[in-house]
């Protein structure tokens, strides 16, 4: 009897420990996901009292929404424009700063510093940096190529301008992961390589890059998810303009949901974003996982 009670307690106990996080996950993750799924099947606007069921009507409407197409294109460009660059810059910084030198710590601090700033604050600063006429960039650029570049107002430059800020903001953070990754690579491997007469590029290709595989995977996944969650800088710097050229997926959801109060359409967009994020996660942890090297 006592034995059985003990066994039952052992079976129940783990679930009790899980309960607090389960409550929060259910309230703030699972329920909203299910609610969004349900609401995406309705024509529901804040200005209409009773939602009507329209099946997949909202999804069909997305297919013909020209702004949604523009938003997808922008989000794709943002992903391609920020993730490889951020990862590349982070890796380069980590390689440069992975050595014992008097200046290593100040430099590491300097490159990590943007991470400590709230994104909203950083965006406000860059708003000034990009101001035509007397902004930081224009003042210096004028001496070289002539001034008057309206970064955030130009349909071709606005999105790259936001991307530059995003790379600047995130590269230092991913650098930390790479620094940590580099610490785990055994010095013996490099010693052996040097004895064999391997050049720096060979060492990088044969040792550093493969052994950093897990770090790179992690950083790419986080950076991709971040790219789809970018919203603060858009909110502050461009409002999605000009001509919707900087309107990204999450900002569009905000517009449709909280400015147009078209809740059904916003839920549909949310489900779409969710699907994208889950696809990224699935791709990385399923398919890519088999290809990265793991140290034992």
């Amino acid at each position, binding site marked *: 009897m006592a034995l059985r009670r003990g066994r039952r307690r052992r079976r129940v106990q783990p679930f*009790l*420990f*899980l*309960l*607090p*996080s389960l*409550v*929060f996950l259910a309230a703030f993750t699972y329920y909203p996901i299910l609610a969004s799924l349900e609401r995406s099947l309705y024509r529901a606007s*804040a*200005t*209409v*009292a009773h939602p009507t069921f329209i099946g997949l009507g909202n999804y069909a409407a997305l297919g013909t929404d020209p702004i949604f197409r523009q938003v997808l294109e922008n989000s794709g460009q943002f992903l391609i424009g920020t993730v490889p660059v951020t990862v590349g810059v982070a890796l380069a910084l980590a390689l440069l700063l992975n050595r014992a030198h008097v200046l290593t710590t100040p430099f590491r601090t300097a490159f990590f510093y943007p991470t400590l700033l709230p994104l909203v604050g950083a965006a406000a600063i860059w*708003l000034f940096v*990009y*101001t*035509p*006429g*007397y902004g930081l960039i224009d003042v210096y650029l*004028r001496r070289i190529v*002539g*001034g*008057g570049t*309206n970064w*955030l*107002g*130009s*349909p071709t430059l*606005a999105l790259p301008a936001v991307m530059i800020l995003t790379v600047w903001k995130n590269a230092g953070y991913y650098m930390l992961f790479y620094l940590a990754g580099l610490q785990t690579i055994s010095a013996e491997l490099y010693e052996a390589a040097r004895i064999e007469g391997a050049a720096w590029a060979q060492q990088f290709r044969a040792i550093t890059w493969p052994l950093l595989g*897990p770090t790179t995977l*992690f950083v790419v996944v986080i950076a991709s998810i971040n790219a789809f969650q970018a919203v603060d800088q858009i909110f502050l*710097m*461009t*409002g*999605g*303009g*000009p*001509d*919707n050229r900087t309107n990204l997926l999450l900002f569009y959801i905000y*517009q449709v949901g*909280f*400015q*147009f*109060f*078209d809740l059904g359409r916003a839920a549909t967009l949310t489900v779409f974003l969710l699907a994208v994020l889950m696809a990224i996660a699935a791709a990385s*942890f399923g398919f890519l*996982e088999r290809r990265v090297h*793991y140290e034992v």
Partner: protein
Amino acid sequence: MRICRRHGALGRPVVPLLASIGLVMLVAVTVPPGHVGAQAPVALTYYYPVGVSGPLNKLMTDMVNDFNGAHPGIRVEPVFAGNYVQTMAKAMTAVLGGTPPDVAVLDTPELFSLLDRDAIIPLDDFIAQSGGKAWLDDFYQALLLNAQAGGHVYSIPWQRSTPIFYYNRDMFSKAGLDPSRAPKSWTELVEYAQKLTIRDAGGTVTQWGVEAPVADTSPWVFQGFLIEAGAPFFDPNGKWVKFNSPEAVHALQFILDLQNKYQVHPPGPTGAAFWSQVPQDFIQEKVAMIYSTTGNMTFIRTNAKFDWNAGFMPADKQYGAPTGGGSFYVFNKTSAARQAAAWTFIHWMTEPQQAARWSIGTGYVPIRKTELSAPAFKDYLKQVPQALTATLQLRVAGEQMTIHDVDEIGLLLVTAIQAAQTGRLTPQAALDQAQRNATAILAKYQ
């Protein structure tokens, strides 16, 4: 996977235990106090936005504290809710959640969005109790235009503004122009702007003639150009818009001409950043003439190191400007007692001396005629005679676009203007597209 294992390390028993304690405490603090004393004052939740630069939060808090001090039976709790869009989002979310605020200052053109949700109540009965037509007529008529629908009054003007035309008098004198007046017409605006645009030896502009944030996140200033061009562009009942009339195309073409043909206005789309850049450029003496809200007058007055003046927005067929800014709304589904208390608050806030205090502290236009004779306002006009210009312009002001789904349709117009400014579409094609999309959205209200 290493990353997962790192998370796994958190699974020590102490963590869930701590989390459970935290959860219990969270529940404990969020449970509302059980009993409220019988004589406790009526507590009103009041949402307000801040739409212009300046220490507005402090002034608002001071005024609310003064109200609470003078009314022991009512306790107004001010909730700063961000800009207009954010405040509207918070209010609507609260309404959808069944816990509406009692009173809020919201962007005045949200009228139909609020009515469509049954979120607000008509104020006719309260107005009748407070002096009826005589009381209401003291407010400037232009400000009441978009407070009404179906014969009822739904909002009381509060922080109202209008775009006006600021100009740098020192630059006018230097260019040989009469510094005592602003250009009167679009034609004269072009002449002035050409004289005021200065280029260096390399052809780079060092001083622009004019800057007009015609479309930032809303097409507010552009509506002034539409009114001036004589384009009736929306239905007073909020059910249709007319964005592609010949007059509207003419107005948009004029903006493009300032930018591309005469090159007296910075080129390219006027985006969200441009709205706040324009007054900055003005005080930095990078531009001679700007269109900006009266709400920025205090900012310009305190920061400009030169002689400046304000004038009407130059006329095309006629003078004109939209009104703008926020008004007081009283919410539905609270209780009669709370609604009456909300009215007491609104009535007190809009008393001439209180309203004058707000106008002086912010630069928003006077909302009532008697406000002008308040002693404090008379003193203010002696210091800032320019403040009168905005009031005078109210006589020729038109109604700001107030329609169903006003935010979404306003953004269509913004996109159209920006598409024309980037050269992606011609003015006609851009406005045609906005018209088509707007008609589709408004179809459900026909």
